[in-house]
């Protein structure tokens, strides 16, 4: 038990922080209820997928600067394909866009492996490419989304007999958990997942132990692309349109990954920490808005929190090592 706490200490701390923040929210705004929680989850949804995309690449020892651009491209593709199309057509659009993300992510990985250019430079270049492609698909925000897709993230999951609890389980949360678990849990338990941690920890050691480094890296980036595409779809689903200029998803994803206890060097951490971290970050923003604080001051506070927490984390690891 103590070992579990020590290993998951960071995540547990984040969860406590989240609960404390919820209590604070309740104190600030006594009327804060299930409906507000639902809108928080809907706002978090695209961020959470961006964070998942970043997490998997960072664990593999890389970094993906093209997350935001990937989301923009998949979002505008989905929105422009569904524009004026029938409801059933969306059944085809969703897998298509997900496959597109997977392929584009794999291309990212292949470029890194083949050219031997550092990850940060390759994904910087693909950031420009994907952003350009998004602008070509849709020059200005527009498009549409199928009604049933919108409905999948609005409202709550009905549990018969327990209306009190079911009000606190928004559909968006279920969608998020399902999408993440379907990919993450089998991955974490497979040889592939171990290989991803191995190449992040030490590429040379992994290579010498017989891990196919190039293939693992490509798969890690492909999965990141898949999460990115989910993020793009989530974006289209929640706004109803596609926007070719991405929001601040890159910065938010890197921040949440670090806050979530994933080392930027790679090989450490899990998916749960970053996801909780992104909830914490969004809730802080909600609280600051509820306190009627100037949104610009909010940006300062967010940045300060990010820097302070990361410094604190680094300080703790330093003390632990001595």
């Amino acid at each position, binding site marked *: 038990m103590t070992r579990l706490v020590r290993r998951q200490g960071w995540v547990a701390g984040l969860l406590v922080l989240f609960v404390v923040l919820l209590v604070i929210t309740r104190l600030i705004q006594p009327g804060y209820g299930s409906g507000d929680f639902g809108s928080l989850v809907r706002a978090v949804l695209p961020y959470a997928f961006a964070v998942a995309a970043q997490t998997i690449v960072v664990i593999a020892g890389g*970094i993906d600067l093209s997350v935001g651009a990937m989301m923009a491209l998949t979002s505008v593709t989905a929105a422009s394909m569904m524009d004026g199309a029938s409801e059933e057509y969306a059944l085809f659009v969703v897998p298509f866009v997900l496959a597109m993300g997977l392929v584009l992510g794999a291309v990212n990985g292949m*470029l890194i492996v083949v*050219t*031997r*250019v*550092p990850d*940060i*430079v*390759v994904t*910087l*270049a*693909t*950031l*420009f*490419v994907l*952003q*350009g*492609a*998004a*602008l*070509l*698909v849709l*020059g200005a925000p527009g498009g549409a989304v199928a009604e049933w897709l919108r409905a999948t993230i609005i409202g709550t999951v009905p549990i018969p007999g327990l209306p009190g609890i079911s009000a606190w389980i928004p559909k968006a949360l279920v969608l998020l958990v399902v999408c993440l678990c379907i990919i993450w849990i089998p991955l974490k338990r497979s040889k592939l997942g171990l290989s991803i941690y191995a190449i992040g920890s030490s590429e040379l050691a992994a290579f010498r132990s017989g891990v196919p480094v190039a293939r693992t890296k490509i798969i890690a980036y492909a999965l990141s692309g898949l999460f990115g595409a989910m993020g793009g779809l989530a974006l289209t689903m929640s706004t109803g349109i596609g926007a070719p200029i991405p929001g601040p998803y890159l*910065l938010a994803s*890197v*921040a949440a990954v*670090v806050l979530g206890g994933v080392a*930027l060097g790679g090989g450490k951490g899990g998916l749960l920490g970053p996801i909780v971290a992104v909830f914490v970050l969004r809730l802080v923003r909600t609280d600051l808005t509820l306190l009627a604080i*100037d949104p*610009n*001051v*909010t*940006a*300062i*506070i*967010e*940045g*300060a929190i*990010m*820097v302070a927490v*990361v*410094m604190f984390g*680094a*300080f703790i690891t*330093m003390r632990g090592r001595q």
Partner: protein
Amino acid sequence: MSISAIQPVPFGRRLKRFMADRPLIPLIILLVMLVVILQVLRPGIVNERWLANTVKFAIPLAILAGCQTMTMLTGGIDLSVGTVATMSAFIMATQVVNHDPAVAILIALVPAVLIGLVNGIGVGVFRVHPLIMTLGTSLIGTGCLQVYQRTVIASGAKIPPFLAWLGTGLTYGVPNALLLFVPIAVLIVFTLNRTGFGRLLYAVGDNEGAARLSGVRYWQVITALYVISSVLAGITGLLYIGLIKAPSLSLAEPLVLPSVAAAVIGGTSIFGGRGGYTGTIIGALILTVLTTLLTILQMPEGARRILFGLIVLFVTAAYLRIIEDR
């Protein structure tokens, strides 16, 4: 081994080895090629005025890329340069309304020093990853700037004539900005190649543990480095506002990612320990000419970005092949 060795080396190998020994040559060839393509596409465009314009727009990029080069030599990166440049430009333009230009410039450089100090302490003392640290401080800086903007909205902004002269003026066809850039460039090259501080940067980036064991005070080197980088970024902001002449809250932001690209194209390793500033300058020139080229082709904005990304990737990959293949 002289060239007249008994075993005749094939010409291709010899050429490659020659280029690997002098990494600047392939870069210069690429730059000349781009200019030639430009001239072929639009005959007569390459003239004195075009040259002066290109240099004028390359200089801010080259100074920011100098910040990246120095931080990248230690294995870091400074993504706050865009925010710092914007802050100093905006603060100068609004303070100059009430103050003497010299005082306004001094006031404008204070946040630059502060941000550099915070970056340096975060990276050097607390060992935060430079990417996170500089992203975080740039977020804070942008927020502060937005709040600040609210307080000066009534007073308006203006650009002191001598900054406009420095940014856009020409003397005998030579951009005045070179007056600022040449000393900075010489100073950076001299610092990196001939001073103890420069050696320490290479040493820290090459092998931090070894540098530490040889008695290098890591945190002092890093703190000094990030402060220098921020001050340079602040000066760039002052120069850039003289060139653009329209203060805005995202003035220098579009230069950040190209500045990283310029340093990488110039042959500085993002993992530290290898590279230099002369390559970076040529990298900045290449990117500027490339932007002109893509603008002249009159492509849609999307296609231009795609090509820009692809070319940056291709050039970096090709260049790494050339210098690594020894």
